[in-house]
């Protein structure tokens, strides 16, 4: 038996080397260039920038005193005790919606004299956003995984649509949905209610809701993939052993879902910790996060301070990721990835439709419609209306721009074409990269966790850091010895940059499934004569197709939505994408940009359906 040619035998190693190369060039080098500003001042290593940030109460609140004098442990403990003693938590009743007398219980927490600083507030809002996203995601995942109804697959494909929307479109969508003249109030007006000033209830709640709009679908998508891979026979076994439906769920389903839910929660926390445009647009500067200050400091060219803030942000995110990955690797593989799930029909008949469970599903459906569909639908409506009512003017502007625009202007069609090309290219590159990292880290124990944590760096680094790093390091070229110069720009560079940003999603979707896969299946293939790479392609990948399809959809979404490296690497060329075009159409009238946003939504939605259908052929 022959073991294939040289290429086949070394395919995995080559892929790993290429992945590492892409990461070094498009990620580690650029961010290293920027982070160096936090550790070197005029070439001399120093802790000064870090100390400055850590002792500034504006950034770290009450902890500044601790960093100021880290060794005075006794007095810090005393201060902590005083503070705990003077804090109180009391249940109260609030009426959150002005104009509607709806009392709700609320835990009011009084913590005198404690300041969280920018970091404290950022972590606080990220925690609340994560909780809200998980709460909104789980019912969706449960319904999509357990019930059969028309359009289930399509809805599942479209879940991550919010992910590609630029922040400004989400903000506009939210105002168009929940504003006093918004869609929701118009609907309430039809039944004689309102208008309710939803947006004025609390800016923080609106921001958290917007974060949930972005991230709950992500958690739902990951959780559905895991839920669908639970072997229903294990549930049946538990029930045959006398467990109630509830008990079987708790003992059998929950432990298998937990890693997926926590993965989603982790990603949500990391993203919302680095949230930027959406907080400012919906909550205003009062709810500023660390990222807002990183942008401001970068704009002031205060690189040392900006890099320090960004570095601390990244370190916190990675620490959390590491803790999570340790937890994940401690979980034993329970799921059988080749399971078939039996789904019940959602509304088989009228009697069932009126059962409490179905009614609860209906209620959730209404909430999902309002929170997720509402803002996007309001955007679409906004693209075909102006002050005088229905109009196609915004779209005809885009058409005219396409046909008659000057060479230096932004035209919609190249933007759509570029977005799709980059999206497909990213998918084609990020999926192998993500899978290779998964293959190398799954079952590699402690060192695997470290590598996988490092592999998550693209998600844990502020976008502006990567952007500035690319500009400083690559776009203008790096001087090499003997007069050579290495520079990186153009479409291929954009695709590589997108793939670097996107592959962690593939890894996160694939790794849990891969490590749950029975290793003897691969060994059987090897013993039958398959090389490692053939076993991966023939056996492992088809068995974890659901995770790969989910990862591919995420990769595509990341590419479509990516803004900062795209605009930098595109430079003056015509390599702009839909979000870049949208940004350029932001003028004194909102119509053209919203029309472009609508096109972005439709193009992306159709792509997701296609990805899911094509990918579905490989799923069983």
């Amino acid at each position: 038996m022959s073991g294939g040619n040289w290429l086949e035998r070394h395919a995995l190693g080559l892929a790993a080397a290429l992945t590492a190369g892409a990461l070094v060039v498009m990620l580690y080098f650029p961010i290293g260039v920027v982070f160096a500003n936090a550790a070197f001042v005029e070439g001399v290593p120093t802790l000064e920038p870090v100390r400055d940030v850590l002792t500034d109460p504006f950034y770290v609140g009450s902890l500044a005193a601790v960093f100021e004098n880290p060794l005075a442990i006794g007095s810090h403990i005393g201060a902590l005790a005083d503070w705990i003693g003077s804090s109180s938590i009391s249940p109260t009743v609030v009426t959150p919606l002005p104009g509607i007398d709806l009392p709700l219980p609320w835990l009011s927490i009084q913590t005198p004299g404690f300041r969280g600083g920018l970091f404290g507030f950022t972590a606080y809002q990220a925690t609340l956003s994560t909780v809200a996203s998980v709460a909104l995601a789980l019912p969706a995942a449960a319904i999509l995984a357990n019930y059969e109804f028309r359009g289930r697959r399509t809805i599942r494909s479209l879940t991550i649509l919010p992910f590609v929307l630029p922040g400004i479109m989400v903000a506009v969508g939210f105002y168009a949905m929940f504003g006093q003249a918004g869609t929701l109030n118009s609907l309430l007006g039809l039944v004689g209610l309102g208008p309710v000033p939803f947006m004025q209830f609390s800016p923080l709640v609106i921001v958290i809701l917007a974060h949930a709009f972005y991230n709950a679908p992500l958690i739902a998508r990951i959780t559905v993939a895991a839920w669908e891979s639970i072997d229903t026979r294990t549930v049946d076994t538990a029930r045959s052993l006398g467990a109630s439906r509830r008990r079987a769920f708790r003992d059998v389903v929950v432990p298998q879902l937990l890693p997926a839910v926590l993965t989603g929660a982790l990603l949500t926390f990391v993203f919302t910790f680095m949230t930027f445009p959406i907080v400012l647009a919906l909550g205003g500067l009062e709810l500023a996060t660390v990222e807002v200050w990183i942008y401001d400091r970068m704009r002031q060219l205060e690189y040392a301070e900006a890099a320090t803030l960004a570095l601390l942000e990244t370190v916190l995110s990675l620490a959390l990721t590491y803790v999570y990955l340790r937890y994940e690797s401690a979980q034993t593989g329970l799921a059988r990835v080749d399971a078939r799930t039996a789904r019940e029909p959602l509304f088989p008949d009228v009697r069932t439709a009126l059962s409490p469970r179905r009614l609860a599903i209906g209620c959730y459906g209404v909430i999902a419609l309002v929170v997720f569909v509402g803002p996007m639908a309001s955007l679409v409506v906004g693209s075909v209306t102006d002050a005088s009512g229905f109009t196609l003017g915004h779209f005809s502007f885009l058409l005219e721009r396409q046909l008659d625009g000057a060479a230096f202007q932004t035209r919609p069609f190249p933007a759509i074409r570029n977005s799709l090309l980059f999206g497909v290219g990213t998918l084609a590159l990020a999926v192998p990269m993500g899978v290779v990292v998964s293959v190398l880290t799954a079952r590699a124990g402690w060192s695997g966790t470290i590598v996988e944590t490092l592999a998550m760096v693209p998600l844990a680094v502020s976008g502006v850091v990567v952007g500035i790093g690319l500009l400083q390091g690559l776009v203008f070229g790096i001087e090499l010895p003997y007069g050579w110069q290495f520079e990186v720009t153009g479409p291929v560079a954009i695709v590589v940059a997108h793939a670097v940003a996107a592959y962690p999603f593939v890894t996160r979707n694939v790794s849990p499934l891969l490590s749950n896969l029975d290793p003897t299946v691969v060994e059987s293939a090897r013993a039958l004569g398959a090389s490692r790479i053939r076993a991966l392609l023939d056996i492992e990948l088809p068995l974890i197709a659901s995770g790969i399809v989910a990862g591919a959809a995420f990769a595509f979404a990341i590419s479509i939505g990516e803004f900062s490296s795209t605009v930098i690497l595109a430079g003056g060329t015509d390599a702009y994408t839909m979000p870049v075009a949208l940004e350029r159409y932001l003028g004194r009238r909102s119509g053209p940009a919203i029309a472009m946003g609508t096109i972005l939504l439709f193009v992306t939605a159709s792509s997701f359906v296609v990805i899911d259908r094509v990918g579905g052929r490989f799923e069983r």
Partner: protein
Amino acid sequence: MGAVTAGLAGCLTRENGGNGDGDGDGDGQLEIASYTSFVEGNFEDAPSPAEWLTEAFEDEYPDTELKWTVPENGINRYVRDAKQGNEIGPDVYLGLNVDDLVRIDETFGGQLFDPIDRDELENVDRVRDDIDFGDPDDRVIPYDTGYISLVYDESAVETPKTLDQLLESEYESEFVVQNAQRSDPGRAFLLWTIDMYGEDGYLEYWEDLQANDTLIGDSWTDTYYGPYDNEERSVIVSYSTDQVFYAGGDLTRHQVAFLDGKGYENHEGMAVFADSGNAELAHEFMDFALTGEAQAAIAEKNVQFPAVADEHVDLGEDFYDHALEPDESITFTYDELEGNLSGWVDEWGRTIAQ
């Protein structure tokens, strides 16, 4: 080489390989960096200022070509490049205001722009006397000016007349302003409050604004497309030309209020990059931008006011029906901002964010 570079992810090139710089000096191409609305336009049915200028200039100067580019993060991009010693692509930057100039000088010690050679500009004397950047190095030629004012919904609130009034209950939860860190009108409004209450009093005024539930949003587009367009807020910091975009329609939500009869005046100017090899053509372009015809076109298409005195531009009376001018204007000069601007904005940001 350029085409090859564009297609490759990484490209190894060797310097001194002959004519490596494709953007040859002295040829007929002038590259102008500007902001999106100047290039992409403000109206769905009319060319953008850049389109108009390109066509008119290329007609006037055959064998020349204007190329426009929109950098991400505006002028910051070139400050960063200059600081790193990178070559700067464009020849002209169009869209500078005085705070940009101050910020450039605060963050970058070197020379990003060359002083203007006024002898090369025939039309430079047409510029209104009161439009002056006060730049000690004389690097900028103004091409238009505008006024930051309030825009409000007359059906929802009384006409606001003073800054103090914005603290009253009439305007509680009604006012929205932009982030002075990142937005020109936002920064203009901040400077206005500094002008009014002084360095020692402006932060207190802003705390009172916050107490009156003022939304301090991000960019102009964020605040206008979002809370203002959707009637969540009824008073916004915007431009005094707001009605131009809604002429012929319902103007209830597009009323312009000049507090104390004033507006914050913001001049926009253009400058020539120090490393441009095309300074001569750049000056020809700038001179062209000051002709009566170009001034009228820029004013109409960029929806601002001309930089030249009235007798040098013919704008038709109906332009002023909707483009409103305050009786008085406030503006900070280069001298007043120098050494203060970033401190004021930083203090303000820290006050708001806590």
